[in-house]
């Protein structure tokens, strides 16, 4: 039986450098981006940052990690707005903007292409990714 990989060739998950977390199961990343988990172990509020809905990387992340299409996630957020009063994660349009956001906000978590990562953020390993 093949062991689940820890990284996708298309994207890496990044967090603020102050975040002590080094590894997360894919199910936990899903919960964070669906706002079902709220606080990091260091008591910082989790701030997921998504890409604009037209970005190709958003489609990959949505299907691979969230197990839903971008459209289905939009429907999920309509449901969450009505039943829990929650709003979807804020969005950015470029890797540069995503990196800047994650570097600025202690509890931020997002994703970029492997080639776009720089030293301003920390990459975390995702376990259980198909």
């Amino acid at each position: 039986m093949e062991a689940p990989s820890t990284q996708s060739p298309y994207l890496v998950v990044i967090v603020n450098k102050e975040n002590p977390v080094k590894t997360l199961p894919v199910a936990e990343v899903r919960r964070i981006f669906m706002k079902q988990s709220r606080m990091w172990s260091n008591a910082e509020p989790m701030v997921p940052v998504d890409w604009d809905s037209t970005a190709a990387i958003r489609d990959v992340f949505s299907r691979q990690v969230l197990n839903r299409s971008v459209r289905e996630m939009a429907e999920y957020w309509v449901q969450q707005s009505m039943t829990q009063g929650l709003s979807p994660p804020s969005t950015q349009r470029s890797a540069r903007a995503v990196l800047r956001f994650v570097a600025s906000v202690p509890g931020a978590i997002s994703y970029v292409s492997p080639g776009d990562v720089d030293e301003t953020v920390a990459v975390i390993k995702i376990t259980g990714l198909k």
Partner: protein
Amino acid sequence: MTRIFFLVPVMALAAGVGPAWAQGNEMATLRAEIAKQEVVISQLLRRIEALEKQQPPSTTAAVQDLQGDIKAQEDSINSLREVVNSKVNLNGYYNFRFSADGSEEPAAFQQHHLGVIMAKQLGKFNFLMELELQNVPHHPEIAPEGGEEGEGEAGHEDTDLSGEGQVAVENAWMEYNHNGYVGLRVGKQLSPQYWWQNHYPNLTLSTTIPIYLRELFPAELVGVMFQGNAARPVGNSELGFGYKFYVANNNFEGNSQSDLSDAKSWGARGQVRFPASGAVRRIDVAADIYRGKVGLTDNTLAEDNVFGFESQIEISSFLFQTEWARGKSLEQTRTGFYLQPAWRIDEDWITFYRAEQLESPRIQRAERRHIVGLNYRPYPQIALKGELYRSQPLERDFLHSEEGGAEAKPFNGFATAAVFFF
């Protein structure tokens, strides 16, 4: 006994809130961070201004990059401000319906629902309020001998004297989430069963709620609810458990501010989310129980015990939902269920079928209904629905009352609705 119910949430809240000086330090740090970020934004704006003055085409990309930087910086400030001050989310929904069928009810346009939802998150605290205008009363009273009601969609038209609908506070609750395992919600809230939680017109495929729904679990509760969940990763999925336990006023009209008994109603719910992967996207099952009292038309209370089961299963583009419940009060047993398979044809189109049934001596109603429908959803916020339904009266002993009455006949119907979420 009554005092204990008030003390429990107060003590739980007191235990979860940190000292004021610690929060003050945190706020000061966040405010300093916001001030720092604002300086960065003004520097970026000055750089854009300088680049725009240079004008050569090669600077266009640089300007776009900087504009992206500014948006990211502004968003990060807003994110920090949300931690300090939070913001109010304002949403709502609108539902316009038309139905015509072979029953005694005339065909009618219905301004069916109009709701406004306001919500705010502040750290571990949440608040949500929903005002709803709808054309059916919220708390139908039950006739003690069970003979007066039973006509129409919800089986309680007798209590809607105006016919013009009413404005109701459907939700008004405050929530404290200590962590994922323990949370407390106080106030007026929807019952925890799946359909009640998701009964909003843009979340459902049909234009009406299942016929049994108002006859089993109460729609809303006014009280305190403990809730939480835990999950364990399994492959790329997880095995999850959730629980809810609540203590609330008994179920009668006007229970938002008073009760007719010191003994409160209570209920509990347990939910299991099984690991799902590949084409299997969701397997949720849950069981619910409710013990309380229901208001009668003579302003007295009768014991009411209800239990039920439900499941939501999603495989590829198929979704299968079912709920079943049984209740007992006034020595009468009532049951109801629905089974609803649905198929997502593509992103915009969904078709569904629902079989549903209600058997209730207390409102003298025994009916099975079949619905076939189609939803067109050009945007996640808009739903245009059409459906055909057939109502079949069921032959049951409890329907043969001494007074006799008009014999129910099967009929066919058609309904359509337009829904907008904002």
